[in-house]
């Protein structure tokens, strides 16, 4: 069940009503939250339920072992076992097919039947996200940042909460579990803001991302050699818009839906294309994942504490993990490592700039923004390409000054331009939507929201492509 679908909105109308009715009975309310989350997940594939239950239970149980063991070394052993187990599960589902062929060739060479590996592993949707939630819970219990969660029910809801199950935001246990106690929030602070988030999310996904995906990105990235240099350049910028609108659109909807149920979620994006360097970009892009990588990969590796050389090495290692997490192809690792280089370069630049007085601060910022934006758009090539060869084909065609001419749809050009403008003024649009709703009585507010949704449906294509981040 996808967010921007008719069946999801029927499901959500029922869930929202029962959510507020059941809050008076906190235990049954929590049972209800777990059941609807599992139901939501089972609509994708009922077999996925077994996996999410195993992950929830093993992480719940291991936290008990970590908490009750002594000395410290034994706690560490339990932590290593559960984190290793979680990573192994993720790697098994995510990379099995990637390594399958190599392993199969090897088995054939040493005389075993290749039937041994005739298994097809489907990556359960959302696994990459809820595994990170589970890992962070155990590490936080180990470091005593949060108390042990004694209720399996609460931990299972934390792992599987349906608005954030498939693509985040990646909430921390300390921020989420407290919201389940005593029936959670008793009221919604700002429903208009949540409706505005759902509307902007729908618009970004259905209108902008879908149009650009089906009208330029998919075609050009599939066979770049059949397209002009200009079309390739536009497709690269278009993909930068698509990946942002697709993923931040999902996050907006997830935050808005959770918000209407009385749950607060952290922001996941903050105008990332206005970043002035790579460090700034990762503070604004997929913020909950960046924070997760910082706290559970970068800092444990030594962070900034072990000298300059180690800082750069740690940055590269963290972005290597980020690349691996995003996909099972070499192109994702290249993407991650190039971002690692970008982060290292940003750091060196910041140190140089801090040493001297810069008289041209504004000019330097504009130049930095322009270079960063274009570098990030260029690196998205590796993220979108089907494999490394495809990425090189796109780059080759981008610099093919003799490519054939091709007609360009001016809607695409206009939409890319307007989208970049939208990144600057997006917050104001959201504020306008909130203030407009606040002025209207209930029925007119519903009418206004319905009119906006109808407009989005009308502007969108007949067939909306799937969310990009679902495959991670």
């Amino acid at each position, binding site marked *: 069940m996808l967010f921007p679908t008719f069946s999801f909105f029927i499901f959500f109308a029922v869930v929202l009503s029962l959510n507020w009715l059941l809050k008076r009975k906190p235990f049954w309310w929590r049972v209800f939250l777990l059941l609807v989350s599992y139901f939501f997940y089972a609509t994708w594939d009922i077999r996925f339920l077994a996996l999410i239950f195993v992950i929830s239970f093993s992480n719940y149980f291991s936290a008990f072992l970590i908490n009750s063991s002594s000395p410290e070394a034994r706690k560490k052993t339990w932590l290593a076992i559960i984190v290793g187990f979680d990573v192994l599960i993720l790697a098994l589902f995510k990379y099995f097919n990637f390594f399958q062929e190599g392993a199969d060739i090897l088995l054939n060479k040493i005389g075993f039947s290749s039937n041994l590996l005739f298994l097809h592993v489907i990556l359960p949707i959302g696994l990459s996200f809820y595994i990170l939630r589970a890992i962070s819970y155990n590490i936080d219990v180990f470091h005593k940042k949060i108390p042990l969660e004694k209720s399996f029910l609460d931990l299972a809801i934390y792992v599987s909460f349906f608005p954030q199950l498939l693509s985040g935001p990646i909430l921390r246990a300390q921020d989420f579990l407290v919201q389940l106690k005593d029936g959670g929030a008793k009221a919604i602070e700002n429903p208009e803001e949540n409706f505005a988030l759902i509307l902007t999310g729908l618009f970004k996904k259905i209108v902008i991302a879908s149009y650009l995906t089906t009208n330029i990105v998919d075609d050009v990235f599939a066979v770049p050699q*059949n397209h002009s240099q200009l079309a390739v350049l536009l497709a690269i910028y278009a993909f930068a818009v698509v990946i942002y609108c697709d993923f931040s659109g999902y996050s907006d909807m997830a935050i808005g839906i959770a918000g209407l149920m009385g749950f607060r979620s952290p922001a996941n994006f903050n105008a990332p294309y206005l970043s002035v360097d790579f460090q700034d970009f990762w503070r604004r892009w997929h913020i909950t994942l960046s924070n997760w990588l910082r706290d559970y990969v970068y800092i444990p590796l030594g962070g900034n504490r072990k000298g300059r050389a180690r800082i750069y090495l740690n940055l590269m290692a963290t972005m290597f993990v980020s690349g691996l997490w995003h996909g099972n192809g070499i192109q994702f690792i290249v993407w991650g490592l190039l971002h690692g280089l970008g982060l290292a370069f940003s750091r060196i630049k910041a140190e140089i700039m801090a040493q001297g007085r810069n008289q041209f601060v504004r000019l330097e910022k504009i130049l930095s923004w322009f270079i960063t934006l274009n570098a990030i758009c260029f690196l998205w090539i590796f993220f979108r390409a089907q494999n490394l060869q495809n990425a090189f084909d796109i780059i080759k065609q981008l610099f093919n000054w003799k490519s054939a001419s091709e007609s360009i749809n001016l809607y695409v050009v206009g939409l890319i331009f307007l989208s970049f403008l939208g990144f600057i003024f997006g917050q104001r649009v959201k504020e306008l939507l909130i203030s407009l709703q606040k002025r209207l009585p209930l029925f007119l507010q519903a009418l206004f929201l319905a009119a906006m949704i109808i407009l989005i449906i009308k502007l969108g294509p007949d*067939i909306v492509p799937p969310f990009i981040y679902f495959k991670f």
Partner: protein
Amino acid sequence: MKLSNSTKSVVIIILVLLIVSFYESKRVEVLSVTIENPILRSLSLAYTAKAESIKSFLGLEFFFNGEENFWQYLKKLPENLVYKQEIPGSIPGHESPIPFLTINPPYNILIVGDSFIAESFGPALEKELLSLKDVQVFRKGIYSTGFSRPDYFNWEEEINKLISEKRLNIAFVMFGANDGQDQTSLNKKVIHYGDKEWNPEYGRRVARFLKILEDHQIFVFWIGNPIARDKYYADKMANLNSVYESVCQECPNCLYLETWSVLATLEGKYSAYLADENGQKRLARASDGIHTTAFGSQILLKEIMDRIKVKISLQK
């Protein structure tokens, strides 16, 4: 009476749902047909039928038709807003009469179909065809589409549009992965899969599609579906292949390319792994048991390029 924010939110969500599905009753009706739960499906269909009758009672059909036309016009605007560049050496349209014994270059080729064409096999075919001499290639693959649900996506309309945009003389067509389902028509009449009437009706739709191409002097290579892993899909695809093959035999402008056995084992069974030229087994099929991997696409491609030699020159 002052409502709490939570009650207000619930009321708003329900009102929005009712208003949107009332306004978009035609679209909701299309979606309702696919709801598996019979109670939900009946409720949804009853609501949309009621909405339609209210609109008709209030005489709103004129407004809704005009409104639909307005959006169609707006969506077609890009066709007039295209920055056109003169393409050097542009290929003229094919002018040879039917029957198509051989087709002379230059070739203006269209590749159309569903997900097989959108991502799996389509890009591989496009790249291969591009490597030939005197060729231009246009590819249009749309996920989850076919001939069973013209109310969802209408390929007859789409092919007419594509033909009017490009001057074509060859088309590669591949459909079927999504078509083993109930057929609806534009007036919402439903023919259930397995009914006696299903195959003849499906055949008529395929024939109409081919007729459009024939009328524009376009020769069609119809690519059949390769064997699928799950019996549920394999049976349906085998049935669809039989329809495609029999319709193609009746059409002077169509050559049916069988691929079922190309991706099967020597025993005619499904296998995710097939041998390469060195006898080494490699993964040929995607994890869904339907689509092809890059290696599987290459096997399919080799076979297809061999078969089309009879009609077109493969000079590189």
